[in-house]
């Protein structure tokens, strides 16, 4: 067997492999997740336009090539928000090098109280790569609606707290919505399903 032949074989193999990957992206819209919900056939969260904590305008396409994990919450949230962000930070570590393409995006549902400074410090306390997005209450309402997020203010004395949907939404690196992670899952379960999203594209 000549070296050339071997090389040709290798090249053919690589080509086939490439095709396989492509068809994986384009022709199999459904994914089998062990813990989360497959959202591959849902059209959600495609056109949100918000600001990052540097004041720059951000859309879904700003994260092309990364795997965005979108979670809505508020910095004064005492329970589910820090637990979810801590879980994502842990999942990212468990994924090792693959975790680098995961981009956690925390969208505030409380833009009246969450300043960009507090939001930035808040998400970065979990992982320095995490980003927070904000907007006017109207812009937030539009973004939340696009993701089917329920949220409402609950008055508590002179103050208020929020009830809200606690699902994390995961897009693949091409910006297709893929996975919904419930707040009840642990870091290991999330990491497994996130790796499944990465296998596709």
């Amino acid at each position, binding site marked *: 067997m000549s070296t050339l032949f071997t090389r040709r074989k290798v090249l053919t193999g690589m080509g086939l492999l490439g095709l396989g990957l492509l068809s994986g992206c384009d022709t199999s819209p459904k994914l089998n997740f062990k813990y989360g919900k497959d959202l591959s056939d849902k059209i959600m969260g495609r056109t949100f336009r918000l600001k990052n904590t540097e004041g720059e305008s951000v859309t879904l396409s700003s994260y092309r090539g990364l795997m965005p994990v979108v979670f809505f919450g508020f910095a004064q949230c005492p329970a589910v928000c*820090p637990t979810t962000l801590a879980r994502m930070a842990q999942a990212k570590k468990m994924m090792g090098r693959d975790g680098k393409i995961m981009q956690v995006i925390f969208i505030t549902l409380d833009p009246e109280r969450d300043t960009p400074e507090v939001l930035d410090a808040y998400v970065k306390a979990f992982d320095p790569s995490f980003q927070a997005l904000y907007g006017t209450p109207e812009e937030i309402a539009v973004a939340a609606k696009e993701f089917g997020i329920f949220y409402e203010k609950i008055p508590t004395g002179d103050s208020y707290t929020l009830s809200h*949907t606690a699902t994390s939404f995961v897009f693949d690196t091409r910006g297709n919505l893929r996975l919904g992670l419930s707040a009840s899952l642990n870091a290991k379960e999330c990491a497994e399903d996130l790796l499944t999203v990465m296998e596709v594209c």
Partner: protein
Amino acid sequence: MTAVQHFKRIVFGLSLLGLAAHASAQVQVTDAWVRATVPGQPSSGAFMTVTADSDSKLLSVATPVAKIVQIHEMSMKDDVMRMGEVPSVALPAGKAVKLDPEGYHVMLINLTGQIKEGDQVPLTLTVENAKGEKQSIEINAPARALNAMDHSMMH
């Protein structure tokens, strides 16, 4: 038995009863912690396990680090987290009632400053027993990092 002796006995008996009543109002607070905050973050949560050995309820919590303290209950249904203030938390006799990120918790609102990891946060709990007697329990809750996972999520 003279009337005086009889009276003494009654008094002694009553004082024993009094001691027993006092002992039955024991409230234990364990695993208390407060979530640390980032600068400018106006509120945080306190968590703990409370065990009363007679049927009681936790009425309120006070702390010098926050202007408003409320007891909230979190519930999850269909992946929607719902939050609301509750007037009190029932402490059935002998039951360890958890105030953790998955249920009841103490909300510290309008903080007087940043809570840093390792700070000791003084908390005063007011507990009322079935007879309507109130007692205060003073504890110090250490502040854990903002990204501290609660125990149920660890495994």
